[in-house]
């Protein structure tokens, strides 16, 4: 397996959606190709860091304000009918 072929399968490999035979070919490649090992490992860390970092959390006070605005607009829509929105 070439490095470019490994890269093509990287996303499927990291997501665990891959058949056993391809998986073992990829792991054979990882065992001797240090560059692909590093790329695979650091891609996985990239995903985990973003997943765990909680960028853009919604502050509780803003959350409450947005929710009451939504609810009051929904109630208004209910009263006046669909044509008003």
């Amino acid at each position, binding site marked *: 397996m070439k490095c470019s072929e490994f890269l093509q399968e*990287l996303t499927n490999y990291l*997501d665990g959606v891959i058949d056993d035979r391809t998986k073992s070919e990829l792991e054979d490649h990882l065992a001797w190709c*240090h560059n692909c090992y590093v*790329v695979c490992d650091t891609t996985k860390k990239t995903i985990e860091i973003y997943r765990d970092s909680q960028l853009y959390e919604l502050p509780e006070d*803003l959350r409450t304000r947005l929710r009451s605005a*939504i609810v009051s607009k929904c109630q208004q829509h209910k009263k006046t009918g669909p044509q008003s929105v």
Partner: protein
Amino acid sequence: MSTIQPRVEQPVSDELALVQAAKGGDVAAFEELVRRYDRNVFRIAQHITQNREDAEDVVQDAFLKAYTNLGQFQGQSKFYTWLVRIAVNEALMKLRRRRPERTVSLDEEVKTEDDSLPREVADWSPNPEQQYSQAELREILTRTIQGLPPGFRTVFVLRDVEGLSTEETAEALDLSIPAVKSRLLRARLQLRERLSRFFQKPESGDGNK
């Protein structure tokens, strides 16, 4: 090497009942749906628009649009996937309005050149995020993801941050499954490449071990 463990939300069995009640005009039932997904919609909107006020507007507009169009929700997909589709469209409209000089579309075809081929292959520190303060780390991650084209950024956020499946992402963005997979791969590789600059081991300057 182990696979990524997705952040899986527990299936919500009463969700369909809430949707049905909301369809019948029960605003309290709809409020419960808002409570479940407002944080997700806000994150997605902010990632797409890159602007806090726009993201706040998108949360309101998307939920209101969902409420007024509940009759069209057939229940073949999850309510959340349907809602994300509405939210993505609202967010893209905001982005277009703010940047009228640039066409913003999820379909914009990004060069098929190997722009994602790894060039930086130095290993990272074992706990790279601990090299920085929380504030610095947020700044690094935010700037890095903002540098991706919107079409890549959105696929990455839905799949890897919000934990939608490939199929759900394809449905929410109206893309084919191969398109989602190809964008996801390139988004992941480009983010990795850009983060390497901040996270690589200090002693691995020559790239060899």
